[in-house]
């Protein structure tokens, strides 16, 4: 502003990006609203009771009821605590074993067949054994989640470690770096995109594993809500559980996994659709 006249600055470059993002979000919401409208319209046409085919309004009422009664918050916190613990421990073990097997030939010879064998046994098959050993409750569920997360992280870390550029390893070694320094300065940074990919895959598997494990081995949690809803003929509660599960995954992916992936893999140009996904 000068000499009493108002001068408008150039439009902020942020504005079109925000508008674009908002437009994309609106389009995404339109699909959801269309589905909800079709669902609501179909209820009287189908003519079944709320136990067989609850309307979206029934599901909304069940959601409010679950929140008012304090059930949903407790189940949500329990599920997320188990998920976070399983994901964290599984990822740590996966990275540690991946680095060990990737760098040590003897460890690779000794452990690779065992890992391949265990990888073939799905976590659902382990849950009954875990229940016998540790009883119903969080221990069993966290163990099952660790098992689910471990293998994708392990194999992706292994891949990352084995494809670390040898020329960089040699260069750092020739400068007198110790084995630990080679690991810290070359191998781990090279393996990071692999670790992140493994973590994202493992996080998705763990989310599905959480539902299975809670159905079998828990008395709280979103998986238990899904199961218990149908047992007590409250199908709307089951659908609330399913929707919460889906929304949780969207939130975790959107607010945590994708930004972390973008900050590592896409930032280094290792994916072709880096720009498209922005």
């Amino acid at each position, binding site marked *: 502003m000068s000499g009493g006249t108002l001068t408008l600055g150039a439009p902020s470059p942020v504005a079109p990006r925000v508008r674009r993002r908002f437009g994309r979000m609106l389009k995404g919401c339109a699909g959801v609203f269309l589905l909800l409208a079709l669902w609501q319209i179909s209820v009287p046409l189908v003519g079944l009771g709320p136990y067989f085919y609850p309307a979206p309004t029934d599901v909304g009422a069940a959601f409010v009821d679950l929140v*008012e*009664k*304090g*059930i949903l918050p407790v189940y949500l916190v329990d599920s997320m605590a188990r998920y976070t613990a399983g994901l964290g421990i599984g990822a740590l073990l996966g990275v540690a074993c991946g680095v060990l097997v990737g760098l040590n030939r003897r460890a690779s010879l000794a452990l690779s067949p065992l890992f391949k064998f265990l990888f073939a046994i799905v976590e659902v098959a382990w849950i009954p054994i875990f229940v016998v050993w540790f009883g119903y409750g969080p221990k069993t569920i966290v163990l099952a989640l660790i098992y689910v997360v471990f293998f994708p992280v392990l194999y992706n870390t292994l891949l990352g470690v084995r494809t670390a550029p040898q020329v960089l390893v040699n260069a750092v070694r020739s400068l007198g770096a110790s084995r630990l320094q080679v690991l810290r300065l070359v191998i781990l940074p090279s393996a990071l995109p692999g670790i992140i990919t493994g973590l994202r895959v493992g996080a998705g598997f763990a989310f599905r594993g959480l539902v299975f494990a809670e159905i079998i081995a828990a008395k709280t949690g979103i998986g238990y809500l899904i199961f218990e809803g149908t047992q007590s003929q409250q199908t709307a509660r089951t659908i609330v559980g399913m929707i919460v599960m889906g929304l949780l995954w969207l*939130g975790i992916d959107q*607010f*945590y996994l994708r*930004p*972390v992936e973008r900050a590592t893999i896409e*930032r280094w140009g290792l994916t072709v659709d880096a720009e498209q996904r922005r």
Partner: protein
Amino acid sequence: MLRLPALATAVLVALTLAFVASGWQGERRKLAALLPLPPQGSYAVTLAFAPERFHQVQLQDKGRVVEVRGHTVYMKDVAPPALADIAREYWVTSIAAWSGT
């Protein structure tokens, strides 16, 4: 670079703190008439709705559930820390001393 995860975490932490703070406020309000608390007491815990299995299990962890009548759960052998936990639950409307018979 990682603004979104930091922002999401900050929102989650803020919501958790607000939830915990409202629980403490509720605890003070619901227990004000009962102070000082005996080492083990009997109480009538009233909810805004008929308690479900979930609520009975939650309350059973804090003491001995003797009876459920309407919206009220009658409990014995409740220690002060357990009673504070019960009072912090937002689904608990009021807590009254009960003779235990």
